[in-house]
């Protein structure tokens, strides 16, 4: 790109600006987890402390909300992971009656505004007289994340050489053994990526959860409620830990991928 608009120093400065833009809010969140604040508002720097890490679980409601969120996210990851993978496998592999409609519904679910999906789920639950709470949150989370898993797995399945499965059949493996020993290991990176996406989508969902939570608190809901009275530093600490876990998983994934590429 000789003579391009962004080159040399300009490009460098621009890159760092973008990185700063992305990182700054996270840095502030982490920093204020170490703030030795005394009042209600954790907004002004008052000195460094580790004490919030020690008092992490002192706010009962907040802890309960975090536990709910984690539990729902893990269950969503498992349920949407399995069901979504099966849908992705079917869509990527076979052309069947209704596969076109299925594809359409998947993309509609992905592109649908959350507020619309939340509201319509709520009216569905109310109409069917399903009591709102933990289970309705779980159902709605599985519902909106399943298409992301299916689309991710489908992309992986489409790159799969179908003669691999034929080779397994040819060598004496029945359909189930072929799936277990050949198909699943081949599509597993897609299944893993899709499931992790489902976890990530679930744990920070606010809009849809807010419609369908009833009295059950999740982490994002609790924070939203607390903003009016001031966020305790524990929220920053929990945020920091969730972020750190995410970074760890991403790094581990990258390392594994590199190992696999070199292996």
């Amino acid at each position, binding site marked *: 790109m000789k003579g391009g608009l962004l080159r040399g120093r300009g490009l460098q400065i621009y890159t760092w600006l973008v990185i700063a833009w992305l990182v700054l809010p996270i840095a502030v969140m982490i920093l204020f987890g170490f703030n030795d604040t005394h009042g209600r508002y954790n907004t002004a720097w008052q000195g460094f402390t580790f004490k919030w890490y020690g008092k992490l679980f002192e706010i009962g409601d907040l802890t309960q909300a975090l536990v709910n969120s984690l539990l729902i996210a893990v269950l969503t990851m498992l349920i949407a992971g399995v069901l979504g993978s099966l849908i992705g496998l079917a869509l990527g592999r076979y052309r069947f009656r209704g596969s076109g409609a299925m594809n359409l519904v998947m993309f509609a679910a992905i592109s649908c505004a959350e507020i619309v999906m939340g509201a319509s789920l709520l009216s569905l639950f109310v109409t069917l007289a399903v009591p709102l709470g933990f289970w309705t949150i779980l159902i709605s989370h599985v519902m909106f994340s399943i298409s992301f898993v299916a689309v991710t797995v489908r992309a992986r399945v489409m790159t799969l050489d179908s003669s691999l499965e034929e080779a397994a059949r040819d060598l004496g*493996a029945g359909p189930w053994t072929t799936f277990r020993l050949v198909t699943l290991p081949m599509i597993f990176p897609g299944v893993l990526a899709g499931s992790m996406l489902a976890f990530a989508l679930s744990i920070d969902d606010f809009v849809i959860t807010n419609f369908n939570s009833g009295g059950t608190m999740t982490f994002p809901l609790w924070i939203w409620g607390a903003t009016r009275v001031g966020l305790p530093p524990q929220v920053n600490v929990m945020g920091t830990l969730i972020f750190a876990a995410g970074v760890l998983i991403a790094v581990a994934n990258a390392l594994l991928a590199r190992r696999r590429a070199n292996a």
Partner: protein
Amino acid sequence: MTEIQAGPGAAVAAAPVSGDVPAIELDHVVKEYVSHGEVVRAVKGVSLAIAEGEFFSLLGPSGCGKTTSMRMIAGFEDPTQGVVRLHGEDVTSVPPNKRDINMVFQSYALFPHMNVWDNVAFGLKRKKVPDAEIKRRVGEILEVVDLVGREKRRPKEMSGGQQQRVALARALVNRPRALLLDEPLGALDLKLRQAMQIELKRIQREVGITFVYVTHDQSEALTMSDRIAVMNDGLVEQLAEPREIYERPASKFVAGFIGTSNLLSGTVQQITGDTAVLALGASDRILVPADGALAAGASVDLTVRPEKIKIAKDQPEGDLSVVRGTVSEVVYLGTYNSYVVRLGDGAEITVFEQNANDSTITAERGDAVWLSWQPWHSYALR
């Protein structure tokens, strides 16, 4: 003239060893695909019998139905009509994992997430062979394909030729009663290909099992096979030994597809003894062995192989086929020279001349030459 009349639709030929049950039999097999609402007839009625221990090739141009035929033998496709038999047993509706044959795929289809050892041991593990025996047999077969010491490698860390040998070992280790190979050398370069041809032939002799070999490379089929089925457009055009196919092609298609051949046609002028004489011009004549089928006035298509024709500046003597023409092209090809000679009626004939003595080229471009060949080298096509 030929024993095997393998016209379209009637391509039946018995296994060479009569009395034995053939290893593989296709009995009037038809395969139709439906794609985008249209019926595609990939195989239009193929019958063939492959004997135990035979190296059998399916040869033909792209899209003629070779792969489809092989996939029906392996069990990956259900025939629309007809019966597939393995060792006399009807297996038409038996799934591939229950058939005692193995296939080597054109893409090799090695499992990328397993190393060489696990790839090769896959079939034996499915059959619940004891560990000690798996160890012994995998070790043995890796020796046969010369891959000892590479057990821990992943397929993508190996060259094309090595992957090919892993694929071969993975199939052979199961000691199948027949091995199906779909253009197994297609992805290799010429040198490696020729080396692997010899290697495959050696392995086949060593293990002594039936090989069914799909290829569109006629020289590969000619060098390796015991018998060849030449396919065209979903049908077997000829099923015979390589020499027979080369010397006595059953149809224009086979003559054109196998090697270089000159197609000529003419009208029978007279029959003298066991020779029919076709007149082309004043001093030109073509002699064809006459069987009962030829009569004066009949029009005949015939082929002559380029290496059977002699090229000379002077009129040859004797009871030969003789035609005159003008050299329109001379190509020096190392072991032989190739001439293209244009006849009076515009037809072109290719002639190969061995470079046996360090003689100079017989004729130059533009020279008038005489071409001659023995009567029995004219082969009439039906």
